[in-house]
């Protein structure tokens, strides 16, 4: 706990120093990066220690705010979510040091201040054991990330994204306040330790409010609308932190609140599982239709949050069914996927950032052939792509194996959860292949083939700090993939703090053999590949392979423009899913006999935003217009309103 | 153990799936006929005791009617109307499959909820309900009048199987009443389609809606 307080202090100090040094960007950067790196090392050490020893420590200080107390609790659940925070804070700071170098120098101070504050507030969210403290940290997190989304505030998209992010953040906070007030017994500080399950409909209301509030942060469909706008708008190392870690705070919060609401009715689990399946499938379909790299990655975050929710939902259903072993398996699949997602999504956003920094565009149709100019970045991006598609021998496979195993076991004979199990495995299979298609498209059109435009002419490999930063999540991906059994102990500890101490033993019953075998299979696969590569080298020894142009079926003059583009690659699938994706193509009608300068563009319509949010916003605006007579624009009137409200409250309380 | 009866029931369900997705009108007519024949054979296979002469005769009549008379009438109606040979569905293939699977899920759930006597033959109630739903799909999502007749026939098959689930031994009472209705309906429709097609050169129900008082905006322009 002491180490964690130290890292909190470091982050806050770094943030303050960076803002103070806003006139000297180099100093601000040094302060921000150094604080973040030191804090990550301290924090990682503390959380790993808690996770592996299964310890529990707490701290409570009085805080002179009504109903508040400065109480922090470090249990395995908190420690588990601290790991991605510190991993990506450290890697992101290192990456940002290279990434922000040279552009927007006058904003560097504010950017580093906000970055360190974001990490500090996330740490505090995870640690806090008091609703008021939690909400304060939560709002700080929203505010600091809002500042970072607005980093490029000259661009209208960034301003729109920031506005949308602010509005949804406020709505989510409102829902959370409702949930906390329903959970907390009246009078006294709103400490988590005093929270109890309210009776009757209030429990369901608290659950729904928490689902809404945390869901808006986690960004599952249909609460995801801000995510594909805000994540691409921020600088890439911040996108990595936001997509990799910040949205997991929604999952963390949901788990924490669900802990207060035991026992769970079956429909809660069903609802979450349904939301998860819809988000997973919808997210990956929308991702497939994108042709801007960072937007694609943002939609893929929606997909992965869906997978996590599916695991949570199945686990909750299993708990209400009394099958704790299945619940343990399912929950640990979800938890591990949360960690895994932060690793590969962090890596992918960093890779995307390197491409954007070096070429100035993330438009897939303008890129290509970058693996020759940026070989290391290309390898990292491919690694991340394989991992996010759930392919062995990487970490994504391990969590999807746990989820799939849970789904298959739920399908077993005499199980009442069989339909849910079927939903889980079908969604997993569909999402896995769609994600593979999506990331093959992304990495293929950025790094493989020939350049599609002159934008890549000046591209060169990312700088040393950026490459070093990418090595951190890449190592994590490989380690979890090769040694999945190591996750067993921490996951059991976390399950103990969600389902009660008895649940810790359930996981190893189902998961220890599959995890060990998955690790063995991953090692075997690596050995096989090495053997095949050696065999190939031996076969080719002493022979000089020929070189020539790509065989293009006899076409005399193939040009790079004739390559299959990103949109063409995904078109068969987007056509089949047209009712969901709604890709609109625009092209001029060709009139003359020898047309010149034809163009064609496609755009995927944001279905949920257009069909749900726009009409709702119009309704609300119409309603607000009726009360516009209240808005007189005179100071006197507003003072009168305030006075009237205060008097009204006084009368009501009397 | 009613292995044969269960196999027939699964075939009936597969025919539902086939009906939901087939694009050819003559295939549709053949599938409906095959389903009718299978449904007609069911009482012979599902009974617990030996087959009585009455049941056998009744099954023979049903098989003859559904396997020969109805298809003949329908093919005649199709040929005379000069309609195109495809069914012109309003929904796509995947949607039809999804509807069919969904209807079967719903039917299984309903079947497990209905307080019905134990039949000993698995899936008979879900299959009957799914068949009724498939008939409904044919009626609602196909444009041609003749496919609507086919839809009614499929629904009738479903209701017949449902009756079988209720009275494994004595399906005749239910069946006779329904069969009479459907026979009349097919007859009337066959004549109606024939005449409509002579008047209008086509038998697309979408076009028939123009006969109503309601006029489309810009009609005739």
């Amino acid at each position: 706990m002491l180490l964690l307080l130290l890292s909190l202090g470091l982050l806050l100090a770094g943030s303050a120093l960076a803002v103070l040094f806003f006139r000297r960007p180099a100093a601000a950067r040094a302060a921000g990066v150094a604080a973040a790196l030191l804090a990550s090392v301290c924090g990682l050490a503390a959380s790993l220690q808690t996770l592996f020893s299964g310890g529990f420590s707490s701290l409570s200080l009085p805080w002179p705010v009504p109903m508040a107390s400065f109480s922090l609790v470090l249990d395995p659940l908190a420690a588990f979510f601290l790991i991605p925070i510190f991993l990506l804070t450290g890697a992101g700071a290192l990456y940002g040091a290279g990434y922000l170098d040279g552009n927007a120098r006058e904003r560097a101070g504010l950017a580093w201040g906000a970055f360190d504050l974001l990490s500090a507030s996330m740490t505090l969210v995870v640690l806090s054991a008091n609703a008021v403290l939690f909400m304060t940290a939560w709002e700080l997190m929203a505010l600091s990330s809002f500042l970072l989304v607005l980093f490029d505030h000259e661009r209208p998209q960034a301003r729109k994204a920031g506005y949308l992010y602010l509005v949804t953040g406020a709505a989510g906070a409102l829902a959370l306040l409702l949930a906390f007030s329903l959970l907390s017994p009246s009078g006294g500080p709103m400490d988590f330790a005093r929270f109890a399950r309210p009776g009757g409909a209030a429990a369901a209301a608290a659950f729904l409010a928490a689902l809404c509030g945390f869901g808006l942060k986690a960004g599952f469909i249909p609460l995801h609308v801000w995510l594909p706008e805000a994540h691409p708008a921020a600088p890439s190392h911040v996108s990595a932190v936001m997509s990799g870690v910040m949205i997991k705070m929604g999952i963390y919060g949901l788990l924490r609140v669900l802990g207060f609401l035991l026992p769970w009715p079956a429909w809660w689990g069903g609802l979450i599982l349904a939301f998860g399946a819809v988000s997973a499938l919808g997210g990956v379909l929308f991702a497939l239709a994108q042709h801007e790299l960072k937007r694609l990655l943002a939609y893929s975050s929606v997909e992965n949050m869906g997978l996590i929710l599916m695991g949570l939902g199945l686990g909750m259903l299993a708990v209400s069914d009394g099958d704790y072993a299945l619940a343990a398996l399912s929950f640990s699949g979800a938890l591990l996927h949360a960690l895994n997602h932060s690793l590969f999504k962090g890596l992918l956003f960093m890779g995307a950032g390197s491409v954007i920094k070096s070429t100035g565009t993330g438009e897939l149709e303008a890129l290509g052939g970058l693996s020759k100019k940026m070989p290391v970045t290309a390898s990292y991006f491919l690694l991340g792509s394989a991992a996010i598609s759930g392919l062995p021998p990487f970490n994504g496979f391990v969590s999807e194996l746990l989820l799939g195993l849970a789904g298959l076991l739920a399908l077993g004979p005499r199980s009442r959860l069989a339909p849910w199990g079927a939903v889980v495995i079908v969604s997993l299979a569909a999402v896995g292949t769609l994600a593979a298609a999506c990331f093959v498209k992304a990495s293929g059109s950025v790094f493989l083939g020939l350049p599609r435009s002159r934008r890549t002419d000046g591209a060169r490999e990312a700088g040393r700090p950026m490459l070093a930063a990418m090595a951190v999540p890449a190592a994590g991906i490989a380690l979890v993939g090769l040694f999945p059994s190591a996750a067993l102990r921490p996951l059991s500890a976390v399950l103990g703090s969600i389902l009660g101490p008895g649940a810790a033993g359930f996981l190893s019953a189902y998961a220890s053999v599959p995890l060990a075998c998955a690790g063995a299979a991953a090692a075997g696969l690596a050995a096989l590949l090495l053997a095949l590569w050696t065999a190939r080298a031996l076969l080719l020894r002493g022979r000089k392979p020929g070189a020539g142009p790509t065989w293009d079926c006899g076409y005399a003059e193939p040009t790079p423009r004739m390559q299959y583009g990103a949109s063409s690659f995904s078109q068969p699938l987007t056509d089949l899913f047209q009712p969901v994706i709604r890709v609109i193509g625009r092209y001029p009608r060709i009139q003359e006999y020898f047309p010149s300068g034809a163009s064609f563009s496609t755009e995927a319509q944001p279905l949920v935003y257009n069909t749900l949010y726009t009409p709702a916003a119009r309704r609300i605006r119409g309603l607000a217009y009726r009360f516009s007579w209240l808005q007189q624009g005179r100071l006197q009137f507003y003072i009168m309103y305030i006075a009237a409200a205060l008097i009204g409250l006084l009368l009501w309380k009397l | 153990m009613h292995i044969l009866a269960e196999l027939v029931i699964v075939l009936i369900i597969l025919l539902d799936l086939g009906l939901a997705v087939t694009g050819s009108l003559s295939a549709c007519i053949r599938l409906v006929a095959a389903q009718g024949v299978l449904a007609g054979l069911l009482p012979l296979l599902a009974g617990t005791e030996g087959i009585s002469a009455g049941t056998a005769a009744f099954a023979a009549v049903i098989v003859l009617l559904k396997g020969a008379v109805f298809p003949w009438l329908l093919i005649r109606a199709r040929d005379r109307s000069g309609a195109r040979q495809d069914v012109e569905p309003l929904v796509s293939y995947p949607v039809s499959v999804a509807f069919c699977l969904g209807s079967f899920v719903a039917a299984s759930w309903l079947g497990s909820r209905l307080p019905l006597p134990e039949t000993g033959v698995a899936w008979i109630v879900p299959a009957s309900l799914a068949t009724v739903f498939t008939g409904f799909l044919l009626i609602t999502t196909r444009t041609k009048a003749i496919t609507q007749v086919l839809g009614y026939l499929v629904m009738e098959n479903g209701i017949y199987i449902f009756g079988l689930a209720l009275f494994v031994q004595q399906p005749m009472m239910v069946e006779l009443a329904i069969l009479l209705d459907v026979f009349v309906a097919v007859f009337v429709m066959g004549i109606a389609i024939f005449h409509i097609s002579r008047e209008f050169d086509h038998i697309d129900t979408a076009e028939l809606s123009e006969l109503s008082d309601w006029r489309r905006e810009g009609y005739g322009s």
Partner: protein
Amino acid sequence: METLRPLSGLLAALLLAPLLPGVANKVKAFFGGRKGQPVLQLYYDLAKLLRKTPVYSVTSTWIFKAGPAVGLGALLLALTATPFAGRSAPLAFDGDLMLVVYLLGLARFATVLAALDTGSAFEGMGASREAQFAVFAEPAFMLGLGALACITGSVSLSGIFGALTVATWAAAAPVLLLLTAAFFVVMLAENSRVPADDPNTHLELTMIHEVMVLDHSGPDLAFILYGASLKLWFFAALIACMVLPRHSGAWATDTGLFLLAVIGVAAAVGAVESAMARLRLLKVPYLLITAFAFSALALILQLAR
């Protein structure tokens, strides 16, 4: 001896897999009234290709060269988890079917990336279609395996196919028939056979798998061809395990029957190929959706009984 037997099965699979495309071709030649190429043709091809010097496009990078090796490695590992003659595979654990399905995914991932690495319009087209069909084939396959898990109560390939007995067939014959049909369709699509794809056409816009490997040559092409035959073996072995539920216990009899069944599946592929035309490209997803419907129906039937 007990540990060697699973390995002998694996070894037999590795050695005999290139026979299957030959069998399918022979059956096609028979239906076409031709003599056809020798059954062992693929062995000759592999031996020749391994001795050839490859040619690489100047556009391609290490990814192009690694693709075939990764694809073959994934399939080799998948085969170690494939049951042989109803006996347990060398690698068998709860959830190994997830591993196998994802390994097939890894092979596909590597092949598609290698195709994109050439920068050719044709290979991109094939890559796109391969990715598209997988989206429908894999859920159908997974759901079918899930239905089998539901019937047998086991969640590993060896467990499932070890638990399939004559009694299971007697109790759930319609369900198992549906699943066999679904697996057969998935096998045809995943192995790029008619009606999903045509293994014979090398220069048509409609082809899928063959166009992706246009640029590979020498040992790389040998890896790809061998990997393809292993994939066919994998599906044929699963289907053979489905339709051969009875085991005498005698090692030789079981093995012989199983090999006959596997070759029978390959012959069935050839027969389908002779009797059917390739579907229009737009209709291939419909075929796979039908396979998915069969799997789903099997599961619903199993749950509703």
